[in-house]
């Protein structure tokens, strides 16, 4: 079955109701015909290209003249931006004066990309930051959308980028934790999921059963699931330890599903350690899946009894949003965006240790009513805040805020 993934906002009426969709359309009315140019550095692959592929058609659907352009760069430029990316994530990197020159030169070579007739120029991530030099040529308001966790950024590298960012009208971050000391307004727009994508669409019960049985998982016994890449920060070994504590009390199975780690030496090591920790326990299923196994992951999540995301560090954690959307009770590490999604005792449980994880899993396995209540509330929370139409609404608000400036409350007339 094909994923539906519509660009038409009206397709979401069945999920969000008419009043919500009408509200977004009316909000966009003051921006009807406004030319919004998004610029990033890659047309395919990666989360930014994926989200632009969804956002731009939806903006057009509500009457905004949205465009998406990709800057050009050579291998040398992308080696520099990769080093910058790593440094912003806190990885030690040396950014030399010659690397800075490359960054500036490639930016200058792309200035022709910037449309003079744009009302808004939206630059995604650090790669095209130098394009802001072109702002004097047009009338556009300039917004910088940072998709990176800057909470542990190398201050020297950030200082370099800040000189560009300060020339924008506003900066947009995923979480308040990523915001920086800047003189321009900073907006917080959390990411969202598409309920119609292969990762999230409804699946027939038979397909869920087939996927579970295909991996030797018993659909009739409780299933504890963590979906994550195999690395230290998602702590799969901690999840195995938590599972063993739970097993002393409950019959259950553990499924650890993540991307195949063939191109990541550390990932391979962690995967091997997880397999070793699992030993010969037939109720631990370690699944290294291909990157496009979206429907399989979807089926595993829908078949799970409790979903765990025991991260030690996390960005926003969209995998938690996906689990919550499926009405599952989630036990998540109290870090990054997981803290923004899980409201303790209301939409799930936040934990700080292996023991805490085990305790909460036990609590949920013992109390199906509690598990159901948390799952239902989690689904309602995601429906109200973390689906694509909400994301579009936040973007429209950001454009309006950039246009009008000010703070507090403004009254708008519908043209």
């Amino acid at each position, binding site marked *: 079955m094909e994923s539906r993934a519509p660009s038409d906002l009206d397709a979401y009426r069945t999920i969000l109701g008419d009043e919500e969709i009408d509200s977004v359309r009316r909000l966009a009315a003051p921006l009807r015909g406004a030319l919004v140019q998004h610029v990033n550095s890659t047309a395919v692959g990666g989360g930014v290209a994926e989200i632009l592929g969804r956002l731009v058609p939806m903006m057009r659907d509500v009457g905004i003249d949205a465009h998406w352009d990709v800057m050009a760069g050579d291998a040398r430029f992308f080696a520099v931006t990769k080093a910058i990316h790593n440094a912003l994530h806190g990885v030690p990197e040396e950014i030399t004066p010659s690397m800075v020159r490359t960054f500036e030169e490639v930016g200058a070579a792309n200035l022709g990309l910037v449309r003079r007739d744009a009302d808004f120029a939206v630059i995604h991530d650090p790669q095209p930051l130098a394009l802001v030099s072109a702002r004097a040529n047009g009338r556009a308001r300039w917004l910088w959308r940072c998709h990176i966790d800057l909470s542990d950024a190398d201050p020297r590298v950030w200082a370099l980028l800040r000189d560009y960012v300060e020339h924008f009208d506003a900066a947009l971050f995923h979480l308040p934790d990523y915001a920086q000391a800047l003189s321009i307004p900073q*907006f917080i727009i959390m990411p969202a999921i598409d309920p119609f994508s292969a990762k999230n669409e409804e699946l027939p019960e038979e397909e869920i059963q087939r996927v579970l049985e295909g991996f030797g998982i018993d659909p009739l016994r409780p299933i504890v699931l963590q979906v994550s890449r195999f690395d230290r920060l998602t702590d799969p070994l901690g999840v195995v330890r938590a599972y063993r504590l739970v097993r002393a009390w409950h019959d259950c199975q553990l499924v650890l599903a993540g991307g195949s780690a063939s191109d990541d030496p550390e990932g391979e090591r962690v995967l091997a350690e997880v397999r070793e920790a699992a030993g010969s326990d037939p109720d631990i299923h370690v699944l290294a899946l291909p990157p496009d196994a979206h429907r399989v992951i979807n089926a595993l999540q829908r078949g799970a009894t409790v979903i765990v995301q025991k991260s030690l560090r996390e960005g926003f954690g969209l995998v938690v949003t996906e689990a919550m959307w499926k009405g599952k009770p989630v036990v998540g590490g109290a870090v990054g965006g997981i803290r923004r999604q899980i409201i303790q005792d209301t939409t799930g449980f936040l934990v700080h240790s292996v023991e805490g994880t085990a305790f909460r899993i036990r609590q949920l396995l013992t109390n199906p009513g509690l598990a159901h209540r948390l799952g239902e509330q989690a689904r309602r929370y995601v429906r109200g805040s973390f689906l694509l139409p909400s994301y579009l609404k936040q973007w429209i608000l950001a454009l309006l805020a950039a246009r009008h400036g000010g703070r507090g409350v403004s009254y708008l007339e519908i043209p």
Partner: protein
Amino acid sequence: MRPFEFHNALSLVTHTGYHADDLRSLLRGIQRTPGSSIFYHVHHSLFRRHFTAGEFMNDFARWALQSLGEETLGERLSAVDPWQCLSVREARDQLARIVTDHLGSTEYGIRVPAGKRFYFSAARTFVLPSGVTASTLSEFEAGVRRCGPDAIFHHFVTAPLRLGRRGNDFSTWLEGELGETGLAEELAALTPYDQDLYKLRDRIAGLVARRL
């Protein structure tokens, strides 16, 4: 007779630059952050649209309980009732007084790591007509049923700040334009803080339908 025009209030979260990692920086932030930030954190549960009935709690209380482990302070902060505050200044003063008193009675407090900081956010709100109007009670009932949480938030939650007294736009219109004093009083007695905005809408519509 002036028809009632339903408006939606939609908000973008902004970063104020203030953050707290212990009691003293929490107090400093409460005293200095813009009023729109106090309003946002006191009403965050409503901005989130959903919360469990009876579990309304402001962000300051939640942070004190869950991140600082300050249970007494958290309980005291959770008792700050936005319904009793007719201005943001009043809410700010109450919050600051509670934290100040607690600071005076405690010998030491912890400082949390960066990942558990409290970030003072604020709301940048745009209010716009929803396109729905009402001139009669039955049109009003239909309008309430069509309204989303963004309209309920505007007419019920932010109304006291605009009116400068406890009340809401619905009651003001029902009493002033339709002479529906009893119904206006019934609606005025509803608090937006013991249920989410969807349930509040249904209760309002139910009361109007009963009157019809």
